[in-house]
């Protein structure tokens, strides 16, 4: 069983919104029709997005950190939005675990958004159907693209490689390794939805310098000066003084 998913590294996300704009660009230009916007150049612009970058302040000034938090559909392994759909427009693909909406079947009743604790679905106010992240399903299998481009648009756009894409059921995949080795976690585990997307936590990056590393180990007398020239054939302590 394949379960495609994103792993998002909060430690390197800089909050540039490149994933948001590239997602919008790719998905508003596809055969499924635009992701409609309202008042894009007016007061209160609003529109349909699959992916948003949110910003949180953790801690209190002056001991606070800014955390940028990209959020899209998590493609839950047990998606609560799917069984509630009355038309079958919402479904989870067996072959790769992507949760999709069939825009031709959706009646726009919004019941699936009530059943999603993550707020990952947004209705298209013009087309009146529910929309959500497709993991760029129209791109990742496109054999006309070079193989390295067969990834979701957000992953390709990320300048810091904060977004990884792969099969979380494959133990050897880059995403499984990242989850395993960098303490990847799921959002709101209390609801038992088993999100496929995972997040990698912030890590403290510390440069540890020991006292003796600040001093020249080859200068026990703490006198800076020319070292005595060793005799020919004798071992030397540095290249400069060697013959």
């Amino acid at each position, binding site marked *: 069983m394949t379960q495609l998913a994103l792993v998002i590294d909060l430690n390197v996300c800089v909050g540039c919104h490149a994933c948001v704009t590239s997602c919008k660009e790719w998905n508003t230009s596809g055969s499924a029709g635009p992701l409609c916007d309202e008042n894009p150049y007016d007061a209160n612009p609003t529109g349909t997005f699959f992916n948003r970058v949110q910003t949180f302040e953790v801690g209190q000034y002056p001991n606070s950190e800014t*955390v940028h938090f990209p959020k899209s559909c998590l493609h839950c392994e047990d998606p609560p939005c799917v069984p509630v759909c009355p038309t079958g427009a919402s479904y989870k693909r067996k072959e790769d675990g992507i949760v999709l909406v069939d825009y031709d079947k959706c009646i726009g009743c919004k019941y699936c958004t009530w059943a999603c604790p993550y707020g990952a679905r947004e209705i298209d106010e013009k087309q009146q159907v529910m929309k959500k992240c497709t993991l760029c399903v129209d791109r990742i299998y496109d054999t006309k693209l070079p193989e390295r481009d067969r990834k979701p648009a957000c992953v390709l756009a990320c300048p810091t490689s904060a977004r990884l894409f792969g099969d979380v059921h494959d133990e050897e995949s880059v995403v499984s390794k990242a989850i395993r080795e960098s303490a990847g976690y799921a959002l709101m585990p209390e609801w038992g939805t088993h999100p496929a997307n995972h997040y990698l936590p912030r890590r403290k990056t510390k440069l540890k310098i020991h006292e003796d590393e600040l001093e020249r180990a080859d200068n026990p007398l703490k006198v800076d000066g020319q070292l005595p020239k060793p005799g020919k054939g004798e071992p030397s302590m540095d290249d400069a003084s060697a013959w």
Partner: protein
Amino acid sequence: MKPAFSVIFLTTLIGAGQGLFLALFTHQSYALFGLLPMQSNAFYGYGSVLALLFLIGGLIASFFHLGRPERAWRSATQWRTSWLSREVIVLPAFMGVVFLYGAAHLSGYNPEVVTLPGGLLIDLSAVLGVVGTLLSFALFICTGMIYACLRFLREWHTPLTVINYILLGGSSGFILAAFYSASAAPDQSDFFAGWAMIITLLAFIGRGTSLVRNAHLKPKSTIQTAIGIKHPHIVQRSMGAMGGTFNTREFFHGKSAAFMRTIKPTFLILVFVVPLILLALGMSSLVLLGVAFILQYIGLLAERWFFFAQANHPQNIYYQTIG
């Protein structure tokens, strides 16, 4: 949640219609066993027409909730998993049986189906009445379960949701039945008014219990579990959108805390206190029963508004600061 008026009218109108049908058939069952005088076919028949009008009103209201009403027929396909789909099937089925029940009475085509041992004569309308009663309860359960099955909305995720839909619909329908019978069969209206008082009292207990329960709920999801960072002080600085999104429009009622504090006692008075007083005062007074039904219906609209507005969706954690 943002209360949608289509759903508020749908649930209150079909609740009254279902309750009225239950009241009519309760009376017919009593009469069948000789506990009450059997009324004319016209009484049950036109009563069913009235119930059907309320159900049609609810059905029409429900279409305003859909973004794509022309595809509504598709919503009957997922009855295996979706309570909404089940409601979509049960509502027209119930309406059909109410129509047949009324038609059997009004057309006079009401053949005997079976005679029970003891000489009890079961005619077609009685069979349709039993089927309709089952479907009416099934519809109440479907409507309630649409909300009760959503485990994230903890204000709704309780059997009380289903119980209250049954009791509030029953109360509304029995008061409507009392009003109807005060004009169509005045000597029977105290039967309906009596049951209406009992059901209204039970509904008060049920709704009161759910209000107390919801007042003591502690949210399961926090900003810590939402973004997976275990720090006691986390504040959202930006939700990633400058002018609001679907998520800010659909899940916040947008009214002040003072409004929420006002609407709760308002609906408690209009739905429970006022009808109980009016029913006690005028068991067979057409005017008082009519006023009781209308005032309670207005109260039920407020009650349903509050029911939606009170539910606090965990997704709101992600949408606190526009910026």
